[in-house]
């Protein structure tokens, strides 16, 4: 994985010192809140309902055991013993004291972590497929490109005051696990006919109050042009993006108001200006960065390994279910990527205790080539484990309450913090997720329902991705009461779609029944167990669901 060079290291530590001084000046009265607030936000510090919140960047969701242990230590020493992994592959601490934040940042800097560009109108943490570098179906590892983008975008002076936040996601496979089409820029790695690496480029996706699917601006962008082209997009956005209204400031609105053809022509014109200049990516530089992400030395699959694993599955049904749901195909024979679900039945999605983080760090060191990923679905992943080690990993996870075999099932819910923490919320989201999880907890029932993504946001900002949930739930406030709108048919993969509102909302007490009605309706109309919820919805539309929910088609 990428290691800081001297520049990174001295920069991050000088930034910690700078923020320490800013906090000191705030507390001594040299800075007013109005002066201080943008400074604290530039260092990932928000003020939420109960306390400050610190958002720490996990670049493209990749971290090692040492970093995970540090997160656990921060949780234990400065917070309340846990952290919240987010849809942006970051972690948030919900209870730090302002006066401690400089110390926390200094601790994080020891393991090459920081909170820079986790807030504000800049280029945010670049996200990537959580199975990057491991997935059997990948064209190439997206992380070297995410890292190149990270280096280019870090403190880029021209792009520090954009009209609004800017999010870039990269996927290395045709099957998009990084939701690239709901990002400001989405990049999908592809090969041309000659076998050269390049990108299909999407621009103008986003969720929030005006959800939009990104438009394709390039079928194939050669690797060497990655930065020049990205810079061209940012320049066009920086120049024409609206600054008069923050709700219309994202590049998706520019795309919508300008139109694909005009905006693409603007980008191409700008690209002609910047290409073949300093931003050209020399092959040697790509190779240098890629070397940081070289695959670990995978062990040869031993004769008999596969049989032993099959036997273990036969003798332990719980392990078999876990393997079926939580193992993903790996490019190396005998290996798999293992999802550690942070959605134990009835628990808050994405939360992990310090002890759980430490266990995951131990497992990564012992069995996983020291690699951990955070998925945008708020789970953790050990990307490289030998199948032969899975029974032992499963046993240890079980001891820590982390062996839920529900990856991709109805209880593997994404939920934003909602009104239990967030100052912007209009309703709670975590307890809704918990109640749905409990309702569908029975393993047999979940298995029977099959792949189904439920995503919940506590307000229109859509941090919980509800627009791209197969079943999306948006919490709003109506006459002082929580109300929940259901959207159906959303999807955040290569066939991205924004879910459609099915009808009037449901009360806090009624929302779980409503979800169950939707699920039962699906079970009643699917053509076979192989037809998953989304496929069935796409076949029949929303009429049967409306009928079941409201009695009116």
């Amino acid at each position: 994985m990428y290691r800081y060079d001297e520049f990174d290291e001295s920069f991050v530590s000088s930034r910690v010192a700078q923020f320490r001084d800013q906090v000191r000046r705030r507390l001594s009265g040299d800075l007013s809140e109005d002066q201080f607030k943008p400074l604290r936000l530039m260092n990932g510090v928000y003020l939420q309902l109960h306390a400050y919140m610190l958002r720490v960047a996990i670049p493209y969701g990749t971290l090692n055991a040492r970093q995970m242990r540090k997160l656990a230590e921060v949780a234990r020493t400065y917070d309340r013993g846990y952290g919240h992994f987010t849809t942006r592959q970051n972690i948030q601490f919900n209870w730090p004291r302002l006066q401690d934040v400089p110390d926390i940042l200094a601790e994080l800097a020891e393991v090459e972590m920081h909170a820079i560009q986790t807030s504000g109108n800049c280029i945010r943490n670049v996200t990537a497929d959580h199975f990057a570098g491991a997935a059997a179906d990948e064209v190439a590892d997206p992380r070297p490109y995410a890292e190149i983008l990270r280096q280019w975008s870090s403190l880029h002076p021209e792009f520090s005051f954009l009209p609004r936040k800017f999010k870039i996601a990269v996927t290395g496979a045709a099957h998009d696990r990084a939701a690239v089409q709901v990002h400001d820029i989405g990049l999908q790695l592809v090969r041309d006919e000659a076998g050269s690496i390049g990108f299909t480029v999407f621009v103008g996706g986003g969720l929030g109050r005006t959800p939009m699917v990104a438009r394709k601006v390039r079928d194939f962008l050669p690797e060497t042009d990655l930065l020049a082209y990205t810079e061209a997009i940012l320049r066009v956005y920086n120049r024409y993006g609206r600054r008069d209204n923050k709700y219309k400031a994202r590049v998706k609105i520019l795309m919508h108001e300008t139109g694909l053809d005009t905006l693409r022509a603007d980008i191409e014109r700008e690209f002609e200006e910047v290409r073949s200049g300093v931003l050209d990516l020399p092959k040697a530089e790509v190779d240098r960065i890629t070397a940081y992400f070289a695959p670990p030395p995978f062990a040869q699959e031993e004769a008999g390994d596969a049989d032993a694993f099959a036997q273990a599955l036969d003798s332990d049904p719980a392990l078999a279910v876990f393997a079926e749901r939580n193992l993903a195909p790996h490019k190396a024979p005998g290996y798999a990527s293992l999802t550690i679900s942070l959605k134990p039945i009835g628990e808050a999605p994405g939360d992990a205790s310090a002890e759980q983080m430490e266990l995951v760090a131990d497992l990564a060191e012992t069995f996983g080539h020291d690699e951990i990923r955070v998925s945008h679905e708020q789970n953790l992943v050990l990307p490289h484990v030998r199948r032969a080690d899975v029974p032992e990993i499963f046993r240890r996870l079980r001891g820590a309450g982390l062996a839920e075999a529900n990856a991709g099932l109805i209880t593997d819910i994404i939920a934003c913090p909602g009104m239990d923490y967030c100052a912007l919320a209009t309703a709670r989201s975590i307890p809704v997720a918990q109640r749905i999880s409990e309702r569908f907890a029975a393993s047999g029932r979940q298995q029977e329902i099959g792949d189904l993504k439920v995503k919940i946001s506590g307000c229109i900002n859509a941090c919980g991705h509800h627009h791209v949930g197969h079943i999306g739930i948006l919490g709003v406030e109506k006459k002082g009461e929580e109300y929940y709108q259901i959207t159906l048919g959303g999807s955040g993969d290569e066939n991205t779609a924004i879910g459609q509102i099915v009808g009037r909302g449901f009360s806090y007490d009624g929302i779980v029944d409503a979800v169950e009605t939707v699920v039962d309706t699906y079970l009643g109309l699917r053509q076979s167990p192989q037809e998953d919820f989304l496929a069935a919805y796409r076949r029949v539309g929303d009429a049967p669901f409306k009928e079941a929910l409201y009695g009116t088609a």
Partner: protein
Amino acid sequence: MKALTANRLIDGEVVWLGRAAAWVEILAEARVLEGEAAEAEALALGAAAVAGRLIVDPYLIDLERADGGLQPVRLRERIRAHGPTMRPDLGKQARPHSSAA
């Protein structure tokens, strides 16, 4: 019936203006504001506390009588007064003396 609430600058703790001019951590100890004059006085104390670097973002909230005590009207403010609804071990509700807050 209102109270004035804010977050404490140094650690973010939720506080309310108390009966004396101090900022209290428990809603039950908050000064109950009846009428415009009381609200204006509280807001002036809030502004002074912002200038004095004690608190940030003061604002008035509505209260109602419930269960023999005072409760914020809005759910958001009830959650601020007690803690996350699904984590009784966190926030003010976790403090031994604040069960009635």
